[in-house]
């Protein structure tokens, strides 16, 4: 029965007053962003660049730390023989320590990304 796509089902709508209000107040800049005026596009471009720069920086830190490990183990084999509390260093690092490290980087990212978005919103509202 193909004609079902002709009558889309009624969709539930969540009404959020605060969001609407805010949207109305910034309607001019918003229109600029949406209608691809030069100003609007520049705002988005700058915002994207900030976000990407931050992501790349954090990714670089992670890659530098994790990426250094195989090289270190390959060229300084003594490192693999160090024992901490009865556990060999490679096992301690790769088996346990990297997880809180990655979680920490993720946490920093979420905070910074949200801060960037706040300032983008402010910029659009002005």
């Amino acid at each position, binding site marked *: 029965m193909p004609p079902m796509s002709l009558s889309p089902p009624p969709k539930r709508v969540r009404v959020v007053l605060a969001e609407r209000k805010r*949207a109305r107040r910034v309607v001019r800049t*918003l229109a600029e962003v949406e209608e691809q005026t030069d100003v609007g596009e520049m705002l988005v471009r700058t915002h994207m660049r900030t976000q990407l720069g931050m992501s790349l920086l954090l990714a670089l830190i992670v890659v530098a730390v994790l990426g250094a490990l195989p090289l270190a183990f390959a060229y300084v084999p003594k490192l693999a023989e160090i024992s901490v509390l009865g556990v060999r260093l490679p096992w301690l690092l790769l088996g346990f320590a990297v997880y809180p490290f990655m979680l920490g980087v993720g946490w920093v990212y979420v905070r910074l990304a949200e801060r960037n978005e706040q300032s983008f919103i402010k910029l659009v509202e002005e």
Partner: protein
Amino acid sequence: MQANLYALVAVAVVALITAVIGGFGIRFARTTSDVLVAARTVNPRWNAAAISGEYLSAASFLGIAGLVLKEGADALWYPVGFTAGFLALLLFVAAPLRRSGAYSLPDFAELRLGSAEVRRVATGLVVVIGWFYLVPQLQAAGLTLSVLTGWANWIGACLIALIVITNVVFGGMRSITFMQAFQYWLKLTALAVPVFVLLLTQASQYTNARATAGAGAPPAFTENTTVRVDTDVVLQVTEPTQLTAVGGVDGAVDVDGTVYWGVGEHEVSEGTALTFPAKSAVPVVTGAPAHNDDWLRPLYGGAGDHPLFETYSLMLATFLGTMALPHVLVRFYTNSDGRAARISTLFVLGLLGVFYVFPTVSGLLARLYVPQLLVTGRTDAAVLLLPGAVLDSWPARLLGGLVVAGAFAAFLSTSSGLMVGVAGVLSTDVLHGRAKDFRLAALLAGLVPMAMAVTIPPIDIARAVGLAFAVAASSFCPLLVLGIWWRNLTDAGAVAGLIIGGGVSVAAVFGTLLGLAPGGWVGSVLGHPAAITVPLTFLTMVVVSKVTPKRVPSDVARVLARLHAPERLGLTPGPNPNRTGTVRRPADQDAVNRAGRHRR
């Protein structure tokens, strides 16, 4: 054989619960998008548990411990990569992808590039990646049932494939968030409880074993052990060993009695039973490190000839492949907005970090208690055999049943997610997107990998899944990253990159799976293609896009604004489908088509 009874009961219970919840889910679900992606807005914590529940597959539950048992420190990069993949997803993809409103990778490709051609190529790759990922899941199911019952491997593979196909055909998307979240906690419990019990009850033995199994020694049998060899193997013997053999050893066909093995390599034929005395050194299949000393070090244990290259290539594949897995992306659609997508990814990082401690420790314990797996090379069974090898009577059976339940939860959740993903794109993009087509697509999505699982000889589960990651990283990761962050991407560039990078990596994976790869550098590259194919895809996409600047979509600025502007500005569709505009069309249309049958 009582242990088997407990385990089989556990299997039946897990399968039944999944089927029942899948079946009831349909009655509760009211709108089409409820059916396909559970409720659209889900608390980030629940969603994180659900993402982890669907993501932790047989590779995580069985494969990692098995690889740790066999290869030692090098295997630790698998769980690290499986987790780091979510960090890359968080940094580059999570929020913009959610804001795009795309439900699948072909949806994203089409709404960003506005090209039906890209959509078709993307569809093909989703299917291939899904199948590559499904095959080891089904093979793991075969292995598990064969360990429990002694049945041939293909029986379990077919059984689990048929269960999942039936579920998908009759249940729509059974993955109610609650069910998936429950699967995470079940898997965590099923691995963690045995580890804690073993560590606590065996603490004294553990220190003894460590002292005797000094670092320089090979692993040793704890008691008289009989090992049945299922496929021909070559074993490395590091200490002269006296054993009893029944079957074919070192070219002699009808051996029955005491055999004396000198240091060196020894061949054992299929069907042979070897009995080793207690405390004798365990011979290890060729390719794996034979001494505990090498096993403890990174870069000494891997099966390949170029461990450093292989380690980096694996890192690249797993770090970048996660964001491009079909069943992971679907889950992001259930986040309420971009911010929630970020937060749930952050929770996923935490949940995975907690989980992955346990496969590692299980692998370590397995080296002490079930070293006989090193003789057959089927180390993926380590987690399943561990409780029975250490404990006696009811605790062993209870924990054994728990582990098996966890393993089946892993097979079922991941396989269902993948099959729904593959069937979804097949029915909308290849067939006509009608209700009947979804069922046909589900059959196709399940039967093909089932045939592959039966015919392709199994390799280590974690390794096989790593190959699927390599294909994902070499195709969709560049499409997502460039599509989200680079204005100048064109449809021609995307298609060229997907075909070249995806094609080369798929060829490499097939070569490896079919055992065509030679040794040396070629074998290393084919077995770990990501280090070559990921840069190749990025390069192709960038170069071809630069050459075809006129094909940059005219609405690129608007689409990128939607991807990157926070929902508060009202640019993005967000949870309110009335504000979607044109961008959401393809995704919602798919949902309507795919689930149309529920509104007869």
